[in-house]
């Protein structure tokens, strides 16, 4: 799998992890908007968080993440070495 540059959100992701317990206690089920080491706001949807993020920070990077008890793991079983278009 192609590696992706994670650096743009390193600070924000670290903030989220360090404050996970407090975020869970206060904002379970919400989407948080994080810039640097600051919680900018909480929202009911990722779309609303994105709109707020673009309004506030324009083209700069920011993190949108749902506060979940158990983090969602995306399941994409067909995605491996061409099996999506397998021929026989």
């Amino acid at each position, binding site marked *: 799998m192609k590696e*992706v540059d*994670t650096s743009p959100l390193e600070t924000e992701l670290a903030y989220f992890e360090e404050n996970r317990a407090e975020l869970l206690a206060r904002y379970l089920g919400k989407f948080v908007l994080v810039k640097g080491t600051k919680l900018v706001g909480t929202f009911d949807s990722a779309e609303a968080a994105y709109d707020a993020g673009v309004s506030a920070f324009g*083209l700069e*990077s920011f993190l949108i993440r749902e506060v979940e008890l158990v*983090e969602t793991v995306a399941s*994409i079983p*067909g*995605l*491996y070495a061409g099996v999506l*278009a397998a021929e026989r």
Partner: protein
Amino acid sequence: MPHHAIQQSAPVPSVTDTQKASLLLRRSGARVSVEVGVPDRRVRVLSTRQRNVPKPHNGLGLLDTGASHTCIDEGIATALNLQVVNRTTMRTAAGQASTSVFAVTLSFPGTSLPPMPSVFALGANLGNQGLAALIGRDFLAGKILHYDGALSIVTLSW
């Protein structure tokens, strides 16, 4: 539920064409034209700052009921300079990997499928499979997908 439907099929005037359609659907799955673009919100900021607005990328999307999330090709994400808004874990047949989540807009030219103006799609290496996007169950939620392998017709209703 309002009924709108698109069908992916080929006219079947002859046995040969039927066989071709059957083979195409069996080999390639339910594919649909897809346009991957920059969300309007970001376009407005780019325009305001007189920055180049990347043109949307047109390609093929695969309707994938096995995929929990919609994915776009990372090469397209790079070309469109899409914004990474999160990182998440993706489980594939090859194991688990961390991947970027991009803010993106998806539309489906030539169909009546509703556009997805603000989508959070996972980056994946799809280009080597001729795909621009995998359309996952997040898109299919609230819709009816009918796969008729006997007639080589896929119908999506919503």
